């Protein structure tokens, strides 16, 4: 069947468009009507979509489980703080920063871009070594990288302020920039996944020996995905920092890593729809549990779950998903596209 380029392009853009529209349809009423608590809850979901998408770009396409990507969010978060914090506070707290950086105060938008670039640069250097390793060794190496970054940022007092929180970081002031970055991350991931590089990388995920025999440079494809996913993680770390307006190093460590991986696995690590589904599902369950921990008032009496049950329950939730739907709740598939567009695509 002949297909006009316009219709083909429309189909190509359909998945991110549908996912973005879905997120937008929730964001709009949240922005118009919701209480600050609900707005915070939803903003956090949007931030997490950026971060989990960053994980997904590498893990979902290469099949290599990288545990250390939160390190790039940490690098991005601090880059954002360095560039956008009130210069007065920088001169007091971060005396080790170069003079020009101390004096500048970039807008959050520029800060996110710079954070992405910095994370990508670090990923290029680190990734050149890490993606050469075989699967499990690569996973362990990325984890080691996370620990190294955390130790450096926790102790380099004159530049990062150590474990003390950095404050006076400007915020976006609206939920829409966060929404924009979530949508942008999904689009970037989708474009990569559909690109020639993405296709070659997904081939190597399924069988790396056959990929080599097919003439695919598995190393180069993995490195490209590693750098791109780090850029998205860096941007996500910056967005998180601008969302909170405050930065502490331990935000970007084990806890966040565990949460992101649960979301990815629950949603289905091999589809972009799974990223969104996983973030929304796990965030909702976690929020309900948090509320239950705080206590529910029924007829004058307060019923509360014991503290710490949230993490335990999340763990059980993940186990249940893995037992009953090991490909995640989306089974690794994307949203079904409308029939007429799909059959046209198959016929091409």
């Amino acid at each position, binding site marked *: 069947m002949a297909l006009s380029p316009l219709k083909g392009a429309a189909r190509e853009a359909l998945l991110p468009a549908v996912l973005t529209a879905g997120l937008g349809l929730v964001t709009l009423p949240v922005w118009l009507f919701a209480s600050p608590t609900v707005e915070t809850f939803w903003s956090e979901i949007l931030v997490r979509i950026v971060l989990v998408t960053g994980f997904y770009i590498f893990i979902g396409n290469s099949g290599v489980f990288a545990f250390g990507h939160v390190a790039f969010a940490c690098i991005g978060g601090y880059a954002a703080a360095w560039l956008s914090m009130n210069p007065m506070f920088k001169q007091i707290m971060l005396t080790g920063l170069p003079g020009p950086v101390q004096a500048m105060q970039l807008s959050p938008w520029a800060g996110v871009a710079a954070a992405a670039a910095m994370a990508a640069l670090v990923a290029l250097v680190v990734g050149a070594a890490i993606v050469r390793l075989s699967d499990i060794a690569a996973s362990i190496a990325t984890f080691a990288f996370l620990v190294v970054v955390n130790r450096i940022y926790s102790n380099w007092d004159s530049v990062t302020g150590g474990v003390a929180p950095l404050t006076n970081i400007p915020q976006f002031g609206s939920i829409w920039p966060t929404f924009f970055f979530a949508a942008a991350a999904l689009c970037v991931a989708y474009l990569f996944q559909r690109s*020639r590089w993405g*296709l070659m990388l997904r081939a190597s995920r*399924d069988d790396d*020996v056959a990929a080599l*025999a*097919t*003439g695919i440079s598995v190393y180069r494809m993995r490195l490209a995905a590693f750098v791109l996913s780090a850029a998205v993680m860096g941007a996500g770390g910056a967005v998180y920092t601008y969302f909170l307006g405050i930065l502490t190093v331990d935000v970007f460590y084990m806890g966040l890593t565990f949460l992101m991986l649960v979301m990815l696995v629950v949603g289905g690590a091999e589809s972009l729809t799974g990223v969104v589904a996983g973030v929304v599902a796990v965030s909702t369950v976690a929020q309900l549990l948090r509320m239950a921990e705080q206590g529910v008032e029924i007829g004058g009496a307060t019923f509360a779950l014991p503290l710490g049950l949230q993490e335990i329950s999340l763990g059980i939730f993940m186990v249940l998903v893995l037992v009953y739907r090991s490909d995640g709740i989306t089974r690794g598939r994307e949203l079904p596209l409308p029939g007429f567009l799909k059959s046209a695509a198959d016929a091409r």
Partner: protein
Amino acid sequence: MDAKIAEAGAARAAEALSVAGVTVRFDGLAAISGVTLSLAPREIVGLIGPNGAGKTTLVNVLTGFQRPSEGRLEIDGQDALGWSPAKVRRAGVARSFQAGRLFGKLTVLENAQVAAIAAGMSQRAARARAAGILEQVGLGGQLGQLAGSLPYTDQRRLDIARALASGPKYVLLDEPAAGMSDAECEDLMRIIRGLPDRFGCAVLLIEHNMHVVMSLSDRLHVLDGGRTIVTGTPAEVQANQAFLSAYLGAEVAE
């Protein structure tokens, strides 16, 4: 016609996929020793021998997966010893696998398309080429299906289509007929016989099915215990005493 043959003859001198005096040792144990074989453009050569004769090891050498302990590997006159499998592939040598090794979570179309992309084609051109080849091997109706969900014999055909998609000059097929019924074999033979003319490629065919390999091959190369025991046309080989006793000994005695 004469001109064509002369041209082919001239090409044969320079253009070939060849190994000379190749020995592969694993922990001192020789899997193949002193094997010399060459595959000229557009010819079909059958590589046969009992299990453990070293056929797959030889294919691994020819495709860059196994570096030989001794000997030479040349692709069209270039020394290709030590090249990575990806580089060998880009030089025009493609292979299929005994175990299929498809990209299970990609569609049938994407499996062939990605091979054409790796050869440097644009996505659009790769998709068109892949669809054309899949049509020719009889998978035109299953383009959107996931490769992992194909029946066994369709997987073999997809593996061949994937090998062809990059436009190789030499294709190495590792037991493509294994596990196929007679009717499926006939269908496969029709596809393989057409490869030199339709795709302009030479075929090295590793196959246990004697009917398939005898009727398709221009020449045969027989391995036993890692050594070449006979080479020649199918008729010559079938008349050779060493071949009969070493390879089909039991059957002849009956």
